C-alpha cells in the first residue's frame, strides 16, 4: 500500500565531501533513497559510515566549510532542497522536516525555558502569537507524555531527566506537523528502559500523526522493532537496502551479514564468544574506485579490488523499492561448509 504512494522525500545521488587539512574526505558517495508517507526507514551502519552526515546534508545542517554537499538531488514536495535559497531552506527545517538528535543532554539550549524552545519554530513557521504557541506547546508536551505540561513550560532543560529531554526534543521536532521526522540515534545516549519508552512513543506518534520517519541507529534490535525498510550504509554509500523482514531473513551483503552476526544471542546453553567485525571503516580520501568494505570482507573477490559494485536488485523490483545490494558476491556463491 505504502509502496504505491509517491515519495515525500526522494534523494538521488547525494554526495558530500569534507575539506580537511589532509585533503578531501568523501563522506557520502552517491546515496539514493526515498521515503514514502507514513513509512519508517531505518538507517544502519557503524560510526563513520556516513549515516548522520547523509541526513544532515539533506537540510544543509553541516557546517560549511568544511562540509561541501557536492551533488545530487533532495526532492521534498517537488523542490530540490540543494537548490533553494538559505531562506527557503530555513522554512523547510523544523516545518516540513523535524530533527531529533542523539544527545538530549546537550541538544537543548540550557539558558532558555523548554516552552520558549518549543514555541520558537511555532512562532516562526506557523506565525502563531505567543499565547497560541504556548497552547500548542502544552499540547505537544502532553502528546510526548510529559505530565503537568503547562507548568513545565517554564522549566529549564536541566530540570528534566535525559528521557524527558528527549521527549522535549521530539515535541520540538513535531511542533509544526512535519512530513518527515529524522531521528539521529535518538536513543543511543539513553539507558535501556528509557530507550524502550522512546521507541514506544515514536511508534505511537507515527500511528497518530502519520509522518514518515528516518531512524538512524547502529542497533539492529531497534531497527527490527520500528522500521519498515532498512538501508545499510558502509563507507558513505548504500551497501544494502531491503524491507525489514527481508533483510533479516535474507541478508545479501557480507557487511549486513557480519552486522547481524554481531548481535549477541541470549538463547543457547552457553554464551558464544561475541562476534565482531575486524578492522575499521575506511576514511575515504577519494571517491572509492573499489568496494570500500573489501579489506574487512571475508568473501572478497578479485573483482572487488577493481571496481566499486553498483546497487542491483535482488528480487527484480526497481531500485529503491525492493531488495537491492551493492556487492559482487552473493550467498549463492557460498561453498559448502563456509561459515555463515
Amino acid at each position: 500500500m505504502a509502496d504505491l504512494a509517491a515519495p515525500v522525500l526522494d534523494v538521488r545521488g547525494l554526495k558530500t565531501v569534507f575539506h580537511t587539512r589532509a585533503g578531501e574526505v568523501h563522506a557520502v558517495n552517491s546515496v539514493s533513497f526515498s521515503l514514502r508517507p507514513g513509512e519508517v526507514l531505518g538507517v544502519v551502519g557503524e560510526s563513520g559510515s556516513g549515516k548522520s552526515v547523509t541526513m544532515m546534508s539533506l537540510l544543509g545542517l553541516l557546517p560549511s566549510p568544511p562540509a561541501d554537499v557536492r551533488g545530487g538531488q533532495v526532492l521534498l514536495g517537488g523542490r530540490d532542497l540543494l537548490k533553494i535559497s538559505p531562506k527557503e531552506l530555513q522554512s523547510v527545517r523544523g516545518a516540513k522536516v523535524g530533527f531529533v538528535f542523539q544527545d538530549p543532554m546537550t541538544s537543548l539550549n540550557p539558558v532558555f525555558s523548554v516552552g520558549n524552545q518549543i514555541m520558537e519554530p511555532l512562532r516562526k513557521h506557523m506565525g502563531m502569537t505567543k499565547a497560541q504557541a504556548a497552547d500548542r506547546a502544552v499540547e505537544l508536551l502532553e502528546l510526548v507524555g510529559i505530565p503537568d505540561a503547562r507548568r513545565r513550560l517554564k522549566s529549564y532543560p536541566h530540570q528534566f531527566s535525559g528521557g524527558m529531554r528527549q521527549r522535549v526534543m521530539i515535541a520540538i521536532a513535531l511542533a509544526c506537523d512535519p512530513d518527515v521526522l529524522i531521528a539521529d540515534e535518538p536513543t543511543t545516549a539513553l539507558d535501556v528502559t528509557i530507550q524502550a519508552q522512546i521507541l514506544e512513543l515514536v511508534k505511537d506518534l507515527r500511528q497518530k500523526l502519520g509522518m514518515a520517519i528516518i531512524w538512524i541507529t547502529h542497533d539492529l534490535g531497534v531497527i527490527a522493532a520500528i522500521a519498515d525498510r532498512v538501508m545499510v550504509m558502509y563507507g558513505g554509500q548504500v551497501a544494502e537496502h531491503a524491507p525489514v523482514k527481508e533483510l533479516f531473513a535474507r541478508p545479501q551483503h557480507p557487511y549486513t551479514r557480519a552486522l547481524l552476526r554481531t548481535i549477541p544471542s541470549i538463547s543457547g546453553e552457553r554464551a558464544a564468544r561475541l562476534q565482531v567485525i575486524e578492522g575499521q571503516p575506511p576514511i575515504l580520501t577519494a571517491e572509492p574506485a573499489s568496494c570500500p568494505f573489501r579489506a574487512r570482507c571475508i568473501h572478497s573477490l578479485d573483482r572487488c579490488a577493481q571496481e566499486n559494485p553498483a546497487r542491483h536488485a535482488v528480487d527484480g523490483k526497481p531500485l529503491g523499492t525492493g531488495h537491492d545490494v551493492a556487492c559482487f558476491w552473493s550467498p549463492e556463491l557460498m561453498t559448502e561448509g563456509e561459515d555463515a
Partner: protein
Amino acid sequence: MLTYTLRRLLTAIPTLLLISLVIFLLVDLAPGSPLSEIPLTVPPEVREKMMKALGADQPVMVRYVLWLKQFFWVEPQYLIDGWFGTDFAQGAQRIISWQSKVPAFQIIGERLPQTLTVVGTAYLVGILIALPIGIYSAYRQYSWFDQAGTFFAMAGFSVPTFFTGNVLIMIFAVKLGWFPTIYDTQLRVTDWASFYKMIMQMALPVTVLALFNAAEISRYTRSSVLENLNQDYVRTARAKGMGERTVLLKHVLRNSLIPVVTVIALGMPTVFGGAIVTENIFKINGIGAALIGAIHVSDLPLIQTITFIFAVLIVLFNLIADILYGILDPRIRYD
C-alpha cells in the same frame, strides 16, 4: 536570590575588615614620613609637635581603630548630613588628609567625578566596541576581519596605556594639534560649545582606555562565542529553521555572555587602577592622580581611604558578577 545577596553582603564585612587592616599595615610599613616635604630647617621639637597634631605619633593600632571608627561611623554621618541637612556628626573628627588638611572624603568627592566621566565612558565605549567585534570575529573565524581583530586586540592588550597615551598625545595633540594635551577639570558642560570642548578633551584618554578594555573583552567574547558555536543546541536551533541572526544573537550570545559578563564586572575596579596611569599622563585630576599624589607625600589617611574604596569596589563588583551570572544562567541558583 535576595537571601543570597544579603548573605554575601554580610560575609563581605569580615573580608573588608581584614583587607583594611592589611592595607593599613602595609601603608604604615612603607618608608617616608608625612613631614618629608617640610624644610629641614624646621627644628625637631616643632616636627614632633606637628606629628602630634596630625596624630601620626600614635601607635599603629590606635590609628587603625580610629580610622575604622571614622570611616564606618563618622563619615557616613557626614554623608547623611550633607544630603539631608541634619546634624548627626556634631563636628566629630573626620579622616583628614595629612597633606592638605582637608577631609579625605572631600578630596575624593572632588576627584571621583573626573575619573568616573573618563573611565566610565571609556569602559562603556570599550564594551560597545568589543562585543560586536568579538561576536563577528568568532562567527567568521579566520576571516580577514577576524585576523585584523586579533591583531588589534593583541596590540591593544600588550602595549601599555602609558605608551599608547603618549603616542596619541604626540601625534594628535602635539603634531596635529587636534586635541588639547591637558584635561581641564574646571570645565563645566553648560552649552554646546562647552560640551564640544568636553568631548575634545575626553577623546584621547577615553580612546586609550577604551582600546585597552576593548582588546581584552573582545578576546573573551570571541573565544566564548567560538566555544558555543559548536554546541549541539546551536545545531538544534538551525534544525528548527531559525535564521542565522536568531541562532547567533539569541541562542549563542546568551550562553556566550555568561563568562563575558563576569569579566566585564570584575574588570570594573581594575579599570580604576589602570586609569591611575592614564590620568597622570593626560593630567586628569581624578582619583588615581589623587592616590599617586598622596603616595608621594606619605599622606597615610588619604592612601588608606582611597585604597580601601578600591577594595570595596572589587568586593562589590565580585558580588554583582555573581548575581548577573545567576540571572543569565538558569542552572545557577543561589538559594
